[in-house]
């Protein structure tokens, strides 16, 4: 009996001692499981973050494959960097024609959807967005976004923001401070000192350019009041230079703040001419602006012409 009491005591002691041990082991097992889950989550997030970063690296630093791809001949690997046969690849310098072609329809959907998916491990993402935003004080109007799906419905968003240069617009012809007494140019007809006269600026359109680019006539009032008339004419200088009255062509309009697509007025492999017949007491500027096909009209602004720093933002949502 005495020995039995001892054994019972021993057993109870052991049981009591096992309670904290069991609790400790349980907590440890739970912690290990939580850490594993957490690490798994972070690793999962990081791998997507890394994947999106790597995709962006390819986009801004490589020209894609083939390097001179376009909407007709879409890339197998998407890259937007500039490429020429003479200078090779220009990392960080994005080709505006490639940016303009991102929305083209190709086999499998839109070009940016198909090609981004390839860069992201052939996975289909319910939310996808690729944006190009001006990154200088005077290019805040520069904003291009290609996107699909709902950002609000995405559970997780993996985003990366990088810097690059984009030459979305080129000013191919310019006529500045055109006024009734404009004197810095020689009129094609009329007297430079006064009276009715017409000024002209010639620009050349190469073969095939009208399929790659859109051309716009952009006018902006500088001072005073003007009722300038303007027009576009292809062919030889002198055509449309009419100081005796009449109109130019269907662009004839006395509004200086014009923004109009002029593709139908232009002829490839030929000189084309912008005419302005100044009227009124003020001055206005006129630009012929070239942009990739399909560039929206709100982006037709002379101040964003030339290579400008931009932020390229890629967002992927699951």
């Amino acid at each position: 009996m005495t020995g039995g009491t001892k054994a019972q005591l021993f057993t109870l002691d052991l049981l009591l001692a096992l309670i904290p041990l069991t609790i400790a082991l349980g907590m440890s097992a739970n912690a290990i499981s939580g850490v594993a889950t957490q690490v798994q989550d972070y690793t999962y997030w990081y791998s997507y973050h890394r994947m999106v970063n790597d995709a962006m690296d390819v986009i801004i630093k490589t020209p894609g494959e083939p390097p001179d791809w376009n909407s007709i001949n879409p890339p197998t690997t998407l890259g937007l960097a500039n490429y020429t046969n003479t200078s090779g690849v220009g990392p960080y310098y994005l080709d505006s024609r490639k940016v303009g072609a991102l929305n083209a329809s190709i086999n499998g959907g839109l070009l940016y959807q198909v090609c981004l998916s390839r860069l992201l491990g052939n996975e289909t993402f319910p939310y996808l967005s690729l944006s190009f935003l001006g990154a200088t004080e005077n290019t805040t109007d520069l904003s291009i976004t290609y996107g699909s799906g709902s950002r609000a419905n995405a559970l997780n968003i993996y985003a990366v923001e990088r810097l690059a240069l984009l030459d979305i617009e080129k000013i191919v012809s310019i006529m500045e401070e055109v006024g009734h007494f404009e004197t810095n140019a020689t009129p094609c007809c009329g007297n430079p000192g006064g009276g009715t006269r017409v000024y002209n600026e010639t620009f050349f359109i190469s073969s095939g350019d009208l399929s790659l680019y859109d051309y716009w006539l952009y006018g902006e009032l500088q001072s005073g009041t003007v009722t300038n008339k303007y027009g576009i004419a292809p062919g030889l200088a002198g055509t449309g230079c009419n100081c005796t009255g009449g109109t130019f062509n269907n662009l004839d309009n006395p509004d200086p703040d014009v923004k109009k697509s002029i593709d139908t007025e232009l002829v490839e492999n030929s000189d084309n001419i912008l005419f302005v017949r100044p009227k009124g007491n003020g001055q206005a500027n006129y630009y012929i602006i070239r942009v990739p096909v399909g560039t929206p009209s709100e982006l037709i602004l002379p101040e964003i012409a030339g290579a400008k720093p931009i932020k390229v933002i890629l967002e992927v949502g699951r």
Partner: protein
Amino acid sequence: MSRAFIFTMDAVLALIPVFILMGSVSILSGGEAIHLQAQTMDLSHWTGDALAVLEKQGTLDDLGRMFANYTKLKKDGDSAWQDERDNLLTLVNTTLSPMIPEYLGYGVDFWGQYPNGTEYIDLEFTTDNRTLAGAERPYENESNSIEAAAKLVSGYEKEKPTKGCIARASLIDLSKTTTKVVSFNPQGSGWGINNVEIEKRFELPSDANITNATFYISIHTGDPDTELHELTVNGMDMRDRISWTYPWQGTGIFQSGAFGVASVTNLITPGTNSVRMVFEHSNFHSHIHPGMRLEITHETAQSQSTSMTQRFYFDSTLGRTGAWQTLDFYIPQGAVVGAATLYLHAEGIDDRYSIEVNGNLVANCFSSCAITYDNTSNIKSYIQNGTNVISAFFDCYGDSQYGSGTAEISNSSYVEIQYASLPQTTYGYLDFTKVLQFGGSSSDPKETSFFIPGTHDPISEAFVHMAQIYSWELRLQAWAQGDSPTTVFESSSPREVPDSVFIDPQILESNQTNYVRATDTGCACDFLPESIIEYTHLIPSLVPFGVVFDDCTGHERTVYYDVDEDEVADGSNLVSGSAGTFNPLLDGKDNALQRLLDELNTYETANASGVSGSEFNPIDIELIDIDFEGEGIGDVPYMWGPLKIRIRIWR
């Protein structure tokens, strides 16, 4: 039991390091480390991308060139280094600030290299001290992650030799011929047979070499032969020198104006000069009319200092029985006036006085006035950019109406303008003044046109000095060809006719025909052909350091000039240097001088041939005593690099 207890305690104690180890693994392997890793990768992209974009844009090279100029200017003790530093800061701000998101802080460092190869850091721009834009950006010492990237740039042209000569040339010590117009305020008066006494003092630079001085006299008087009792320049009587272009015609109010011209070249001296005159009019007022002035052509060294306080003094006018004066002065466009004070001292007041600033009444009295007026008035609210006119009338009319005895405006009276800020002078430019006469015949209105040459020279200021035999109220308009006339001045009350009217330079245009039209809106009073336009335009005065050359000798060079823009060289000057062939393609100093001459050749000569400064392609100013600064700096290799520009970004 104690064994079991000991066993249990052993187990628990043994588990403690196990728990610590597990906790550490949890922290190290979990979010913090991964998050930090991702954040570092993002910052690394920002720094790398920013440098790459700046390099592609050419901005890195611009920064390098500006930094090189900054170090050179600072080394020379030239105060312009601060401008260059500010330019550098502005460029960093305008390019980087829009690129880098507001939640990141950033800094830009410039690392140069001493000749012994050791590096030094200069100009650590950072958002911490808010020299870089972004009030909400985080501070560096509070950040938990920072990334830096650097690129080597050359201060000057890439792939050039690291030893040799670079040079610049400047016209800081250029001697120039300029014309100073000393205006006489319309003022008076003597009533009837009583004299008016007027004294004016003015300053010329102490180093002025006076080559011509012409005095234009425009007065309302009795017969000058008998009633112009005194007209002296620096104490020397000059009445015999006057040729009366528009002679006195009689005692009637409209006949008694006279306008004449006299050469006083040998009477004007550098430093302080004085003109004193005493005259009467037997029937009416004797007083000075608009158009009275001294035109002094002189050579002087340029001074680029601009004072933040300016005083414009009244002339001394002793009238019998009244004294009046209109003082005109101009406030540059863009200047912000901090304070404006009018101090006026007049004595001998009997009946009344009236003081106005730009038509705004400052003080008046119509009866029982104190005999002495001595007051300081705050006139800031009446001051405007452009032409300002102060009219001060004390008694003024004959004893039968107002006044008695004499009244005097003291030449201790003044207007003092304190500027809160002045428009920035354009660094690297010198001003050059030209005077043109209206010409033609007398008329009202009178209009003239004049061509301002140059394709890129800014006009800094312009004045019109109208001359009249009789005047009442002035309206002056100006415009450039193709623009509508702009009224630049209009009298707000009778007799408020300034001698000098300021034209906003924005109205005029270089390389363009410009027009000025004057109208007397109070009477049909002709303006004389001797009326003048005086305009100052800026000419480039320096060229920066150029590329590296092997030689740094500097050879003599004959420079032709055409100052009257008739497209024919008017003469030439020899710019001193070593004997030998002037070769801007091989010699750094020659190259700097040639680049400077290109800058000074602003008026495009038709059918020009040869380089700027040659006989058939002359420059547009006469280099009487050019001191061009050019030096070899071959012993300062860090001037052209390698320069390291580092961008740091933190979060």
